[in-house]
């Protein structure tokens, strides 16, 4: 999620692919497509990882289309009920939906970039309370507690968490556990 140079997560999140349409011919680069052409021709479409696509788009050698995890269907679903969307299903297990969106946002012009930022922050905030609630619920159950009464909707929500949300879940769960442990510990046995 962050831009830290050494961040493993940041490096991997830039591997998400994006569809680019080249605006220029680039000789000897056909291999980028994994294809058999020797050269890349203008107007040809290629799926490229973001780390590579970014500089091409930025330098105006290529255009891109908004990737499926951010298409209008997904946007509508998120706007209607953010908690019901399985973000992990959009970017694959271990995928970074927010990190992906952030990079798309950086490639967009002002207006669509603001829109993207709005979509990302709104979805994040609408889901955050549920993430934390569930994490604290799990921490309260203690080591023996399984799914318990948490229900199908809660389970589906947990399965739909993307990597950044999953991290927040763990942070909240650990913190709640630490605090609970302290409250429940007793010093009355102290000598």
């Amino acid at each position: 999620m962050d831009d830290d140079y050494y961040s493993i997560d940041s490096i991997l999140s830039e591997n998400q692919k994006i569809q680019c349409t080249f605006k220029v011919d680039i000789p000897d680069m056909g291999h980028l497509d994994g294809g058999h052409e020797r050269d890349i021709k203008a107007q040809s479409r290629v799926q490229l990882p973001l780390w590579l696509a970014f500089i091409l788009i930025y330098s105006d050698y290529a255009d891109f289309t908004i990737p499926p995890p951010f298409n209008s269907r997904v946007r509508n679903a998120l706007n209607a009920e953010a908690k019901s969307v399985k973000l992990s299903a959009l970017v694959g297990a271990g995928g970074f939906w927010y990190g992906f969106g952030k990079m798309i946002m950086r490639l967009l012009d002002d207006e669509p970039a603001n829109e993207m930022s709005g979509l990302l922050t709104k979805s994040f905030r609408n889901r955050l309370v549920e993430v934390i609630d569930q994490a604290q619920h799990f921490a309260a159950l203690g080591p023996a507690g399984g799914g318990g009464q948490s229900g199908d909707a809660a389970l589906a929500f947990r399965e739909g968490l993307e990597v950044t949300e999953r991290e927040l879940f763990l942070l909240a769960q650990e913190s709640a556990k630490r605090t609970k442990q302290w409250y429940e510990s007793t010093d009355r046995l102290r000598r």
Partner: protein
Amino acid sequence: MASAESRQFGNLATQLVQESRRSTLTDTLLKYNDSLVRTVIREQRNLENLINSAIAAQADNAAFTGDAPALLLYQTVVLRNKRCLLAYHAHRLDRLKDMYWALGGALPALLADNDLRSRLSPHEVDFLREYNASVMDFRGDFSAELDIAASITHPPRDLHALVRVVRDCGVIETELGTIDFKKGQRFMVRRADIEHLIVQGYLQEV
């Protein structure tokens, strides 16, 4: 661009970083992937050659600009590979440092672990030795009043601790005189005298 490995620039470096991710998720240090590191470095040399010939081609024909995007791409891949290589190594060093401190800076105990040893590159063993030397050097500056390698995980409550011996650790100097800690015995000792033995797993607090 004959070999298959060069067809998708950056893929191999990504594999390295995926190993780092797996290492974090499983909380283990995987074996140092020497051959993959070497292959990525070979890819870097290959890219350097491609860049040099692209520059040469451009110099031959002032009007020819078709290679500019290609140059940009090669350079991007070089920088990406470099970032992956550095992140892979930095991630391993971070894990090694954590393991070192988890043992309270007991380097011999760490290096005696043959299973761990077999997963390290020779450079990583060198790193641990030099890191340890730096820490010891720094630690010596305070040795009279403070042990900077002492555990800080739990704030102290009492000056003394009741401990059980989990593994024999031989004769140790304490304020009560020398004690021969034998497995199964219990002692009430000054915490500062034996803190390091708890960290290294010889003693356990009761």
